[in-house]
């Protein structure tokens, strides 16, 4: 027994190595499903249906076939257009509203701030049907088709993700020193031109982070697109389920489609990672 008695120093080192190993095990476990997603996308459908794998002989066949099995391109392009435009608009609206909340103690600021959070409390199912009815009403009375159009989905998503974007932008504006506007106003800017010419450019990282954040959420949305579209404006979450349908079990292609659907958000995320992380943690720390 005496052989395994360790000095306190050695014991501490052993514990540390153990905890390091545990950390990497946890990392591996968290990434395992993603590894499996990618690994399966590189197998063929027949093998996957039998549950057999040949990881040493990957094939890109599924990535080629997935565009033919279903009209995946349509879903992908719809997602890309709707989410990009909606996230841009939400960021634009949120940048002005977030600036107002961060800088002006205007009357109604507090109720407005509360209303912004309040929107997050309304379950989507509650206003989904009225939005649908609203679309029908607009079609009847104004003649603008919104149901099953990209414009309709962009409108809905813009409104959807504006509230979170406002809080995001507000925390970025709060981090900008006030001297900046004051200096700009001394130089002859009005409050609004100071905002456009001086504050917005220095909040660029915040704008990027907010855009990416809104984009990630829009990319993920299913409830509204499932009810407010039927063909033309359908997006990825609708399309992806068709690989497993009555007419076939294309698991390889399903996983390949999953990889393709994830790539845009991974790129967006890592492009803006530093600022995004700052925005999320700042928001959470401030409440």
């Amino acid at each position, binding site marked *: 027994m005496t052989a395994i008695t360790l000095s306190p120093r050695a014991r501490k080192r052993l514990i540390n190595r153990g905890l390091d190993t545990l950390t990497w095990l946890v990392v591996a476990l968290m990434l395992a499903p993603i590894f499996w997603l990618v690994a399966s996308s590189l197998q063929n459908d027949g093998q996957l249906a039998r549950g057999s794998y040949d990881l040493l002989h990957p094939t890109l066949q599924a990535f080629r076939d997935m565009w033919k099995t279903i009209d995946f391109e349509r879903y992908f392009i719809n997602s890309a257009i709707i989410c990009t435009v909606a996230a841009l608009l939400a960021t634009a*609206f949120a940048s002005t*509203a977030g600036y107002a909340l961060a800088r002006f103690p205007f*009357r109604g600021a507090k109720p407005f701030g509360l209303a912004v959070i309040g929107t997050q409390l309304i379950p989507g199912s509650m*206003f989904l049907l009225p939005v649908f009815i*609203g679309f*029908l009403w607009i079609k009847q009375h104004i003649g603008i088709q919104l149901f099953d159009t990209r414009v309709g989905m962009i409108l809905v998503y813009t409104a959807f993700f504006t*509230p979170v974007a406002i809080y995001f932008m507000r925390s970025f504006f709060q981090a900008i020193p006030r001297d900046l506007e004051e200096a700009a106003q001394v130089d002859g800017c009005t409050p609004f031109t100071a905002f456009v010419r001086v504050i917005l450019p220095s909040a660029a990282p915040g704008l990027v982070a907010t855009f990416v954040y809104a984009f990630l959420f829009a990319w993920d949305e299913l409830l509204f697109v499932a009810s407010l579209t039927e063909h033309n404006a359908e997006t990825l979450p609708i399309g992806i389920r068709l690989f497993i349908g009555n007419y076939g079990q294309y698991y390889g292609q399903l996983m390949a489609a999953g990889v393709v659907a994830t790539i845009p958000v991974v790129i967006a995320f890592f492009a803006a990672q530093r600022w995004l992380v700052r925005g999320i943690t700042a928001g959470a720390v401030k409440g």
Partner: protein
Amino acid sequence: MSTPTLQPEVRADVTTTTEPARSPGPKRRSRPNRLPYWLIAPALVVMVLVHVLPAIGGLVISFKKFNLFTFRELFGAPWNGLENYRSILLDTDNPLHSGFWGAVSNTAVYTFWTVSGTLVGGLAIALLLHRKMPGQRVARTLMLVPWIVPSYVVAVLWAFMWQSDVGIINKILVDYTHLLGHRPIWLLGPNTMWAIVIPSIWRGLPLAILIFIAGLQAQPAELHEAAAIDGAGPLRRLRFITLPLLRPLIGVQLLFGVIYSAYQFAIPTVMFGSNPGPDADLMMTFIVRQSFSNQLYGLGAAASTLLMFVMLAWVAVWYRAFRRDLEVS
């Protein structure tokens, strides 16, 4: 919501009289400051159009007899009083009554496990990643990845892995490690709850880890060092220093975690279709199915309203518990 139209004028008069005396700056502003209202106007308009008015519409529909037959009349559909509410809450003859309560209890179970799993797991992993170690940055970045994977990809991926015969999870649990003697069926029956809880935790963990790490980094190291010198072991330091200091962060995540989980829709829907079965049917899947597959719009709206009031009650309870943490931060 209508205050901005009237109130600014009142305030503006006050500011114009006081401002010249207070700030003899180079650019004297004598006009009332309407700028903030112009700045919030676009956001306000879209929020009123897509959130507020439709939510009021939803509330109105919950008191109407609104179904396939009356749909053409839109808001002219006959009033139904509290009948929608009564039929799902109390009417034992209504077949949807038990479905509703089943969804209520499933949602409670789902929310409890998802939120507690995410917070406890997130804190534990954040503590691990807070330690200095080689490759710490890489480990932290890799840990974020599951959060970026879209919910519907999470759902199809896990449904694929949960398959009883050929899925990788049963292969590992049964064939490779022999941890289990039989093959569990994950996508049917009671296990369906775990089939949605576990992917939800998996996807939620990165955000919790991220927030907890930020909170841990903000804690003054001297506090921990002083406690260590006074002889407090790691567990006591966790209990009496780390956790109390993390309380506001735990609070924020509890608040939004519960709301987000209670409104979960995508994962069960993509995994199981519009009817996830009696063991995994959540409030949102129940409401959407009754509204859009069965055209019971009034009933769905009543259930939505009830769900919203439960969440309002949760916010009130939360506020009482965490009010003092809000003031600190």
